[in-house]
């Protein structure tokens, strides 16, 4: 089964759910959680291929969640969502293991491209070892 499983982590419920719905329309399995804790517990139960992770969240921040995900399974790819149009926090996420970053409000086509790239990376990385 080549269907990509995506986990969307964003405290903005409406944003997350709408994005999930749009991804579903494009044959991508998308699940949403609204905080870092739920994200970390979900990847234990239903490990996704790609996580779309908001940088700015209450409780656990995006970078902390990134650290948790990579600690659990380094092969899960993470695309950071940066709210404040700054490249620096996105770059910081990439330095800590994120696959890429994308600025909010997002361009869906660009996101799809990045998701596909991330998925391919995961597949090739999974085959290598």
């Amino acid at each position: 089964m080549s269907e990509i499983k995506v986990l969307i982590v964003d405290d903005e419920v409406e944003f997350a759910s709408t994005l999930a719905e749009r991804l579903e329309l494009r044959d991508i399995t998308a699940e949403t959680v609204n905080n870092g804790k739920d994200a970390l517990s979900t990847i234990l139960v239903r490990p996704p291929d790609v996580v779309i992770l908001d940088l700015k969240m209450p409780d656990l921040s995006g970078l902390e969640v990134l650290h948790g995900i990579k600690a659990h399974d380094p092969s899960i790819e993470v695309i950071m969502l940066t709210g404040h149009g700054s490249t620096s926090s996105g770059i910081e996420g990439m330095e800590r293991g994120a696959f890429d970053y994308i600025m909010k409000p997002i361009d869906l086509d660009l996101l799809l491209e990045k998701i596909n790239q991330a998925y391919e990376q995961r597949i090739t990385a999974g085959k290598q070892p």
Partner: protein
Amino acid sequence: MNVFNRWLARFLPEDEYGVDDASGMNKRYKKFRLSLLTTMLTISMLPATITAAIGYFQYRDLLQTTEKEQLLWNLEGAQKTMQALINELHSSIEFVVREDRCDEILDQDTLDTMLIRLKLKYNGFVDLGVIDSRGIQLTYSGPYKLRGYNYRVQEWFDQVQSHGFYVSNVFLGYRNIPHFVLAVSKKRPDSEDYWVLRATINADTLQNFISTINTKASDDIFIVSRTGKLQTSSHFFGNAMEYCPICETSSPIHEIFKLEGGMGDVLQVSAPLENTPWMLVLVKEKYIHQAAWSSFRQRLLLIFLGCSAACLVISYSLSTMLTNRIRETDEKRQSLLTEAEHSNKLASIGRLAAGVAHEINNPLAIIDQKSGLMQDLLGLTEDFKYKDKFYTSIAGIQNGVGRCKAITHRLLGFARRMDVILEEIKLNELIQEVLNFLEKEAMYNRIHVELHFQEDLPTIYCDRGQLQQIFLNIINNAIDAIGKDGLIEITTKLQESDVTVRIKDSGPGIPPNILKHIFDPFFTTKAPGKGTGLGLSITYGLVKKLGGDITVNSEVGKGATFEIRLPVKPDKSAKES
């Protein structure tokens, strides 16, 4: 120290925010300079004046004392001389009235001989008379017929009887010639009775004698009775027998007074002559106006004037210099304050803008996604009556979101800490590149761009992207300002260690009230929706971040000139901020 500070604060120009009109401040500085000058002059001149005054009076006193001593010494000499004369007259008479001669001189011939002898010695002797104890003149030798004249009731007769010797004041008598009387009384050896020898002497004798002792040290020497009647003539107070009120005294005096009609002060000293009713008086006029005194005064005045002039010059230049220094410092501080205030304001507005942008970004993302979803779903739905309308509506929403996105991105870009990537940049080439972007727009609007590039401009180390944004913003603004038909002049030049780029447009110019706010975020004069009001504030932020400076000069009707100054090599702070 507190008192000093308070005193200083009273005339230092006050630092008032409200007073920024130049004439008010000028008045303040003028007042300050004047106060400073006055204070400095007072401080410097006071000791000099006091010293000069002390010197003046001290020296005058010294001169006065010396002169007075000199005059007193002269007086003493004159007194001795006069005393000697009187003693001599006395002893001459005494010789005549030796006790054993009483009967001898009762003889008229003997008395005549005596008078002739005395006259030989002193020409002033006029007559001689022998008087018995009852006061009757027994014998008389002289020009008048006074034999048998009774002196009993006259006062001098009592006095000579009790004292043995008597000198009268000068009087006119029958003859109407000033003369005085000398009388000696003797006891008869054979009885208790007294007899008296009376001699009349012309006052000329005194006058002649006193004239011989007239010294150079004094201007006037004369004898006066204790009641103030002149016995000899005085240079200042009149002839003999006249009354001199100032001289009326019976004790030694030395005083200074103003002589009526005379030249300044006069010093007068006097001493009594023993066994006479007379006082010897010496007067010195202009006693202070000696060469020593006048030359001292001249020198003192010269030194004092010199000191004053020096003080004035030094105080004036010092106070002027100090005031200018303070004014410069004040102005510098004021401009620094204004600048700091401005960048502070920009920074806080930037932070606020970033906050707002960030908050708006999230709902914007939701709207964006929702409209996207609607578009997706519409694509899956069969045609219905208003499907096209839905599509155009969604496109409208997305267009609006796009504009909002642009604003928030620029806002965030304005506030965020951007990484500055330094590289070697040829500024002339960079501006040319930027112009390539805008060429078409300029051409459409018939705007001519004139370039005055300094060919050998050094390469600068700067961030290419940010520089592009800076010039794009300003040139774009210039095109907007001109509208149609106009000229943009771009000049590059090396000034000291900075490269300056001047962009001058022929637009309508910027009114002063707008000029003040031109770098404020959200400030725009363009129609709503046409501009965000962020272009120039972002430009300002970028230039500052690159370690440069941007200024604008404009007058209504004369276009606007933006001048951007960029360091050839930015300092470290530019990289960090």
